[in-house]
């Protein structure tokens, strides 16, 4: 509309700015999760993710080497070592020898030990303990070190979440379970709905208008209504809780939208093609498979994306129809809710798990956005 006189606003920059602010606001929370998933436990706990690129100040607890490593130099017993891992650029600011006075001494300044002798921690993390008497005991001296750690990024969280095999943290099984739920629950309703939509769009029979109205009505029936009756039904016919039940439930719940979208699309296909095919002696099944299906690809894709996103992201249906007491068939959404309970403070695990679970829908979203938008428009604008 830029060519209309007067619409070229002098406030163009304000538009750019407000859109930028809006986008930033909308993007910010997700970016936070993404950045957090690459940070170490300590870094997440001590600085906000927006500071991930800057050094962060943390207080860490270390132990010196055990007394067995001490060497005698003249009349002094000396224990030397390095607190940080090799290659670390951390800079010590203060340190302490008791948990009550964590920052009692500046780096480089010697601290009196309780059992005699001194310890000195330098800025680079090297330390030296000296005493006239030999150090005793089996464990080293505890040191509380406050240091500036350089920014650090790691793939460790992803390794934990994806490959560790840890029963609470590992998402690998849940990932496959989710996939197992999602793919049949996406494909089967498409097949069922496509045939029904064709009948509703291109075949004449009594009661057709009523059926279409019923489908429109069922579009908004809340899922909540179906939970108890269907669970009862599944338990009584022996399906119980399991994949079969959840596939059937997703198929049933997805059908109204599928039929509605596909019928609306198929009705718009040119009548000539179908009538010509009929005249040429094609059977209805042939017309459907060879003409209607290929032409309806955009609508099929739209619905497939909807159903995929919905089944992948679903929690309620899986909770009710799939996940039994053993938890063998848990899905990612359920496991993340559990992690929220058990690992509420461990953001590195939570963020990574959540990011793993949303990454697949995001890829689908960006790859097939065109169809998603088309489906949305067909599904709601009348």
């Amino acid at each position, binding site marked *: 509309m830029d060519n209309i006189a007067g619409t070229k606003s002098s406030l163009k920059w304000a538009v750019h700015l407000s859109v930028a602010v809006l986008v930033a606001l909308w993007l910010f929370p997700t970016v936070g999760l993404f950045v957090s998933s690459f940070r170490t436990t300590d870094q997440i706990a001590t600085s*906000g993710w927006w500071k991930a690129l800057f050094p962060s100040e943390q207080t860490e607890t270390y132990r010196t080497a055990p007394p067995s490593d001490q060497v005698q130099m003249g009349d002094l017993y000396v224990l030397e070592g390095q607190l940080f891992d090799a290659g670390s650029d951390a800079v010590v600011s203060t340190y302490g020898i008791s948990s009550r006075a964590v920052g009692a001494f500046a780096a480089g300044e010697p601290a009196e030990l309780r059992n005699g002798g001194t310890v000195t921690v330098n800025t680079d993390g090297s330390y030296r303990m000296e005493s006239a008497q030999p150090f005793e005991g089996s464990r080293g001296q505890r040191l509380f070190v406050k240091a500036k750690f350089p920014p650090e990024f790691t793939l460790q969280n992803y390794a934990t979440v994806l490959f560790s095999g840890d029963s609470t943290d590992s998402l690998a099984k849940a990932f496959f379970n989710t996939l197992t739920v999602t793919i049949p629950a996406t494909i089967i309703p498409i097949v069922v709905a496509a045939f029904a939509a064709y009948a509703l769009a291109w*075949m004449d029979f009594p009661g057709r208008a009523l059926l279409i109205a019923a489908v429109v009505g069922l579009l908004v029936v809340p899922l*909540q209504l179906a939970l108890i009756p269907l669970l009862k039904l599944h338990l009584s016919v022996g399906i119980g809780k399991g994949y079969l039940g959840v596939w059937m439930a997703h198929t049933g719940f997805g059908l109204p939208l599928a039929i509605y979208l596909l019928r609306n699309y198929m009705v718009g296909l040119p009548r000539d093609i179908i009538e010509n095919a009929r005249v040429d002696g094609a059977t209805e099944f042939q017309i459907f498979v060879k003409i209607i299906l290929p032409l309806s690809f955009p609508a099929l894709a739209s619905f497939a994306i909807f159903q995929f996103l919905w089944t992948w992201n679903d929690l309620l249906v899986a909770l009710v129809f799939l996940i039994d007491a053993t938890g063998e068939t848990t899905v990612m959404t359920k496991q993340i809710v559990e992690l929220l309970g058990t690992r509420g403070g461990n953001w590195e695990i939570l963020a990574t798990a959540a990011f793993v679970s949303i990454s697949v829908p995001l890829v689908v979203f960006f790859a097939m956005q065109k169809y998603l938008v088309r489906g949305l428009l067909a599904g709601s604008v009348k």
Partner: protein
Amino acid sequence: MHPALLGLVTIVVGVGACVGYFYFSNIILDKFLFPPSGPNAGRNINRANIVRPWLFLLPALLALGLYLAYPVVETIRLSLTDRDQGGAFVGLDNYIQMASEPKFWEAMQNNMLWLFVVPAMSTAFGLLAAQLTDRIKWGNIAKSLIFMPMAISFVGAAVIWKLVYDARPPGTEQIGILNAIYVFFSGAEPQQWLTVPFWNNFFLMIVLVWIQTGFAMVILSAALRGIPEETIEAAIVDGANPLQVFFKIKVPQIMGTIVVVWTTITIVVLKVFDIVFAMTNGQWQTQVLANYMYDKLFRSSDWGVGSAAAMVIMLLVTPILVWNVYNARKEMR
């Protein structure tokens, strides 16, 4: 069997069974029952054409009937019976019991708040985003970024926003952005946002607004583009300023679409479950109907009251259902 393999087998069997059903039922119809040849060819073709629609519709009708229509009826029945008394008819007892529970009224109150705030804010932000992004070159990129939360699960969104709302003890560095900003500007102690009664509802609602704005934007943007340019040109020639053009020319012309967006989001709001379940589980006075119902069903195993709660949700949806059916029928004529 490995779950992945099991899934693969199911796809093959499930899809195979569906396609097989359609294929073979058509063959049986055309080749054996009513073959379009022989002395009764004409009559057979007509008969086949009467049967065929139902053949095509049968699986869908069965699934719809069993998974959506039957539960509506069954839920009404269950809401009038008591499971503990062996399913005896108890009239409206479940509803009376529900109405006597403060948690139910808390859920109702919160749901009303959700119903008012979320559709309004999503539609408003969506309209704003649609109007602004339509006028700039990088609008499409901006749109897809605002639209992106649509793909994120409610549970994923709950984690994302819990990180935003995270609170650390006073005096330590805040890792939740909201508290970091709050402490930085006010100097006060960090807040556990999700435990502050009444206002925590809004912190939950923001999550849904964040998700639904993209939806509103996409649809409203298409509607804005559909406005005939002459009307806008005429208004500008008559000396309308940009705000007047927007509110007096554009908005009235897309009112129908705004209503559709509003009602669609309203339905999502009525069913909202995951966000509350994952973030507060209804504690700190954030209960909503769907979560209340889940509580009744699977924690207290009270199917009667649970069904009654489901019926309340259904009742709230019904006006929109009737409106949609009415519109669809009007359109078909």
